[in-house]
């Protein structure tokens, strides 16, 4: 019984670490994409750095509410399902 708790605690810690790293990565990729979209747009040639900053911040706010960000929660869901399915297949088949 203690072993299951140990797995749960240890797994939670590892998955939280993974979640944090994946979130940081995903945010960084999105910011880079926004920067490139602004810099590569010829219509925005010569606009001020403040405008660029505002555009990127607006994009990041939109990202924050997006489904894509919430999908990172699958980092918790999928391993739990895999463990559940493994337990079922190994022990109850």
């Amino acid at each position, binding site marked *: 019984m*203690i*072993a*299951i708790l*140990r*797995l749960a605690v*240890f797994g939670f810690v590892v998955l939280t670490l993974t979640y944090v*790293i*994946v979130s940081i*990565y995903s945010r*960084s*990729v999105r*910011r*880079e994409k926004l920067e490139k979209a602004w810099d590569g747009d010829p219509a925005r040639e010569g606009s001020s750095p403040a405008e660029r900053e505002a555009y990127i911040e607006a994009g990041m706010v939109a990202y924050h509410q997006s489904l894509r960000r919430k999908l990172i929660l699958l980092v918790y869901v999928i391993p739990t399902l895999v*463990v559940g399915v*493994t*337990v079922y*297949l*190994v*022990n*109850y*088949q």
Partner: protein
Amino acid sequence: MWRYIKWTFRIVLFLIVAGFLHYTLPHHDIVRVTNTYNRLTTVGSENSWAYAAPDTGTAESTVTRDIRFIETAFPGGSVMVYRNEDTGWVWPPYFKYDSSNLQAEAGNLKSTAEAPKWVVVTHYGWRFPFLSIYPNAVSIREATGPDERIIPYVPIVVLVFLAFLVFMVRRMWLQFWERTVEPAAAEVGEAWDGVEARADAARAGAKGVFGRLGAWLGTWRKKR
């Protein structure tokens, strides 16, 4: 010289990873169960890594314990002995705790060479007679025949997932390097250029004994 060392290192690393995966991932054997039994077994320091940890349920003692074994024969006539132990909840991640049931199933599937009943034993681990190491049987089911074709889905999925993981870790690392480390390094470089310029200016002012003394005193003054 360095090339050889580098390649030796890479090959050794590859062999360790491949061996680790080969030990841990499930394999399938088509065999005929000939006998099942428990045997009091001494687990020594040389082979304890290939046995269940002492707190997994079927293994109560670290040194001597009762272990269930399943003896089998391949269609070709060679034999294989599996141990049947719980894996517990951490490693290897099979989460097996039905060793008693598995032993009963294996006993139920026993057959003779004259009337063989072929079964598929899913197992992980290796058989090393020299170190008394046995693969651990995970599950058993009846086979359609001695030459049933088995597609190893689990190893395929696990290996694809591991490749994906390596790919993602690499991408994350490159992103981190490009977006965090390089800008920081550029900033440090600029700051360092400033330090060098200041040092050059100080050196230019430090001519002669008094000049040098004045320059040294100057280093204590607030930077403008």
